């Protein structure tokens, strides 16, 4: 069972969530899973763009019951 590391970027505005995510990924191994939590509405377009630019894989995006955006990301090989 592979567990995802949670990156809590709730409350942060652009480019905060992406910077937090990038910093977490720096130390990770290829294939590692990350769960990004954000409240920045801009992240809905920015996280897919970031995945496209960086080559990391966005596996899932969803909105939790409390309105938090949740993204599941796999670090590129």
């Amino acid at each position: 069972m592979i567990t995802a590391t949670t990156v809590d970027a709730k409350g942060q505005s652009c480019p905060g969530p992406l910077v937090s995510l990038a910093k977490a990924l720096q130390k990770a191994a290829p294939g590692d899973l990350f769960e990004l939590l954000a409240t920045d509405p801009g992240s809905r377009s920015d996280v897919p763009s970031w995945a496209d630019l960086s080559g990391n894989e966005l596996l899932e995006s969803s909105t939790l019951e409390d309105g938090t955006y949740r993204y599941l990301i796999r670090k590129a090989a």
Partner: protein
Amino acid sequence: MIEVAITEERAELAASFADLLQRVEALEAGAATQIVKKNKLTIIAWGGDLDRIWPTTILATTAAASGMESSVFFTFWGLFAIVKPGVRITGENWMQKMMSVMNPGSAQKAKLSHYQFLGAGPAMFKKLADDHRVAKPEELIATAQDLGVRLIPCQMTMDLLGLRREDLLDGLEEPIGAATAIAEMRDAAVSLFI
């Protein structure tokens, strides 16, 4: 009869070979002058206003966070944004010193291009940024350095304004000139002047 045919065939072959050679040479010459763009962002940070240095640092940081190469060339007023926070009056002569008084160094002291209101504008802007948890330019500069963004001062503007290497933030790249700045921009897929 057969011999004539063979000679003709050879001549044709030689001609098409020469033609092919010419085409290869032309292709090679073309490839040598072709510019290969890198997955890279280069920003010429000309403006030192808060409302310029802010997007500059946001974009440079985001590019690095997205796995792109990222570099910022600080020139003219942009250079004052990377003066060390504690450094007050810089320059050798009265003109340079006056410039530094008019343009207090460091991103923390950057003014707004509009709605400065004797400092109330930037204070309000920063209050709003705090409320929305937007990182400030000085924080973004530190993050940029952390993520490997190359921050490069302009040698000519440093000389013009009398700014010494020790007046500027630590961890900057060596100062460069216009040609090197153009080389930075030439191989960057995205280059901006802010």
